């Protein structure tokens, strides 16, 4: 089974990279761009075929390694 994990900074955590991207977009002439936040996208292939078990397994991976839960949220998407 394939899974996609999005790791994003929690609301309120300063994101200087997102800010720099926003500034660069404005410099390119893109108007009306509000807050920009940068995150990570991780694609995983796992042997588990049961969706619930897969989600539980990836949840553990997120907490233990993929995200730093002090500052980051994670979102798991399973490809059926």
């Amino acid at each position, binding site marked *: 089974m394939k899974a996609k994990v999005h790791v994003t900074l929690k609301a309120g*955590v*300063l994101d*200087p*990279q997102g800010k720099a991207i926003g500034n660069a977009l404005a410099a390119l002439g893109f108007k009306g761009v509000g807050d920009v936040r940068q995150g990570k996208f991780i694609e995983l292939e796992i042997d588990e075929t049961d969706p619930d078990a897969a989600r539980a397994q990836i949840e553990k991976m997120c907490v233990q*390694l*993929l995200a*730093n839960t*002090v500052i980051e949220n994670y979102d798991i998407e399973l490809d059926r």
Partner: protein
Amino acid sequence: MKSAVIVFPGSNCDRDIAVALGRASGVAPEMIWHRETTLPLLDLIVLPGGFAYGDYLRGGAIAARSPIMRAVAERANQGVPLLGICNGFQVLTESSLLPGVLMRNAGLKYICRDIHVRVASTESVFTQGYAQDQLLRIPIAHNEGNYRAQESMLDRLEGEGLVAFRYAACDGSADGNPNGSARDIAGIFNHSRTVLGLMPHPERAVDPAHGGTDGVAMFEGLVAALAR
């Protein structure tokens, strides 16, 4: 004083700290590869600066899950002094041996230069060689040194005297923060002050040829406290 330096793929200050500790103690530290799973009897463990695992995922994230880190955490929990410098500090926060996180510098630039810090607490084996509020000039070299934690945790660190070093301007005033770090924090202790993480590199300030020797007192203080 018997010490060990943990070496990760990408560590690059492991030799520097080995020289600093060797000079202060007269005994060369053991260099321990991250794949080891056991540690000899030790008075001090050091996680050196560098770019362990190329800073993949997050600075210190992969190193914190290295095989040796289980043994390191076990010793730290037993009270064996543990020092993390720069990338080593990042490994300590990623291991939850210290609270908070080290985020990208506020100015988005890698900073490599001498800065000034104030000794915020001398109540530890690491800082007892200094005077309270002593101003030190020590190099920094990092991209992620912007210390962040919840306000309640920052209050707790300050309230319990667990801030070890604070950035300061060369005239000693508060306006010397190079990276946006919360409350000018450059280094913190754990609750028992037996674990210290700091971004500045005291091991790069131990010889007149380095341009300064303000790091010497840390290593001589450790030897004075830990030599058997």
